[in-house]
């Protein structure tokens, strides 16, 4: 082993540019690790087509072989494309579900792997670890939404009559609300050391209240009141309007407004819970505990 020069001042300097580079490094690391597990092919290509199938076939059975039951569906939803309707609902549900597992579990996975402490020992902005872990997840999710859209169009003949740019706009505006919940979740999981029960609870609430596979109109009023407080309700409605109907911007304007408000709230809450967790971890040593 060769000799090195005598120690001088540390090499690193904290600048905004270096913080951005650190964030980019976290994203690169997360992406590299993600694609080194070949199971990503299943999650991106196969799962999106398998998961909604159960609901679609149930709907086909209930609508009758001749589709006579679809009249009522059309009255309640304004749509006839029930396969696309199910696909959009379940895809948004899957998006939130995956965010809860992946973003929500990002720090916990690092903790169990043993690498959280070594990240925490660096002078990088702490939130970069969570933000960086979210970006590859968001990219893979967008790919998954795109792939599943293509799969439904070509395999099931779903007619996406709406607008792709408007659909992308809805997804973009939905990001703060979906990921804000993920950030808050990630911080709680570090403290509680367990994610499963919380994930099951949140995704159960979304599945039942937000109209994933059925229109809100069939719910009792009290359930509709609860649904009005959940951002996923607006995401599902807006994506359906943007992708499946020809209503245009008018059809999603109210949903977008609500999603901006929900986004600001959940993002602020996510960051606040993260800051609380970071402070608490320094007092209790939670970062190093498995």
């Amino acid at each position, binding site marked *: 082993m*060769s*000799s090195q020069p005598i120690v001088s001042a540390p090499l690193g300097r904290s600048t905004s540019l270096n913080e951005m580079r650190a964030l*980019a490094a976290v994203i690169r690391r997360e992406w590299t690790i993600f694609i080194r597990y070949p199971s990503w092919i299943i999650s991106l290509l196969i799962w999106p087509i398998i998961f909604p199938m159960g609901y679609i076939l149930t709907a086909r059975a209930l609508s009758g072989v001749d589709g006579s039951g679809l009249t009522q569906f059309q009255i309640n939803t304004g749509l006839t494309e029930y396969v696309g309707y199910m696909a959009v609902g379940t895809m948004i549900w899957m998006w939130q579900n995956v965010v809860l597992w992946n973003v929500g579990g990002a720090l916990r996975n690092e903790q169990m792997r043993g690498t959280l402490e070594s990240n925490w020992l660096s*002078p990088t902005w702490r939130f970069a670890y969570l933000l960086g872990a979210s970006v590859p997840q968001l990219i893979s999710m967008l790919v998954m939404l795109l792939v599943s859209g293509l799969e439904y169009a070509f395999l099931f003949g779903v007619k996406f009559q709406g607008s792709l740019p408007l659909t992308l706009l809805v997804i973009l505006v939905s990001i703060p609300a979906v990921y804000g919940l993920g950030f808050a979740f990630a911080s709680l999981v570090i403290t509680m050391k367990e994610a499963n029960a919380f994930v099951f609870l949140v995704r159960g609430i979304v599945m039942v209240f937000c109209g994933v596979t059925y229109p809100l109109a069939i719910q009792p009023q009290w359930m509709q009141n609860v649904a009005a407080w959940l951002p996923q309700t607006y995401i599902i409605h807006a994506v359906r309007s943007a992708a499946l109907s020809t209503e245009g911007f008018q059809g999603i304007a109210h949903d977008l407004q609500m999603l901006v408000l929900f986004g600001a709230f959940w993002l602020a809450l996510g960051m606040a819970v993260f800051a609380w967790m970071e402070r608490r971890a320094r007092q209790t040593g939670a970062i190093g505990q498995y």
Partner: protein
Amino acid sequence: MSDIAIQAHKLVKQFPARADSGNDKKPEGQAAPAKKRSLWPFGKRAPKSMFTAVNGVDLEIRRGEIFGLLGPNGAGKSTTIRMLCTLLEPTSGTAKVNGFDVVTQANQVRRNLGTVLAGERSIYWKLSGRENLQYFAALYHIPPTVAKKRVEELIERMEIKDRANELVEKYSTGMRQRIAIAKALLARPPILLLDEPTLGLDPQAARNLRELIAQLKQEGHTILLTTHYMEEADQLSDRIGIIDTGKVIALDTPEALKRRIDQKEVIRLELTGWHDDLGDKLKGITGIESLTSHQKGEADLWEVNLQAQNSRHALPRIVESLSGNGTRLVNMNIVKPSLEDVFIHLTGKALRD
């Protein structure tokens, strides 16, 4: 610039603990009385008490020295280290690393401190050695051109050039540990904190690592080292602090510590048929100050170390105690006290207890 690299003054860390939690893995310390009793809607909740993991630690580690911090499990060693590297906030007291306060100037502390905690688990096994170093270089805010050069320097130095692009999961424990150390050296921090750096390494890899640690000292690094290997601490450390029940109970050079019990003798027995009652019997012999025992590699062969003021007085009673009950004395020596014996003398426990 001050001559002191790391300074801790009356450092205290307390954690809340439930009195009835039944958690027997709690770090040792003194429980303070409960302040208030809270009620849980489903019944009475146990009152909160506090246990003191670190109880007023004072340390001054000089620039350029290797300082060994030793202590039995649960003594407060890890908590002290975690406070020094900003992972934990002290309950009271102050600590400075290279002149920066661990609470109010945590980022400057992190910049000045290279750490090896959790060894091989502190790096990403699904990344290559080179990718790991590039990643951590970015986290330490090293500009890309400097980082690239530094990563290559360290890959060369750690002798992993041929395998730097392989995934860490394919490395041996020794190679992973070298990556962990390279990670700690990336930003050229003046101070290094090495927690059990040779744990799990084969003898050759451990020897190489000890040589590297000695080189790093020659280069001007201050090193805070914790280890379970007493010979390692003895060989590498300029000074040693022994911590027990949250307090530094001895702090001196290895030689000075050994001189403390020079007048004592250590009777080392090798025997078969060891049982706990025999331990109690031996401890009861007048002049025996402490006893430790551990099983040796061979089945049913035990090594028992007894510290005595005067072995000649104690020996006949020892031999007498060993007769009967299936115990057979295989070997017996009277040896010069080692650092391990100093440790046992001070803490009443072996380092691995």
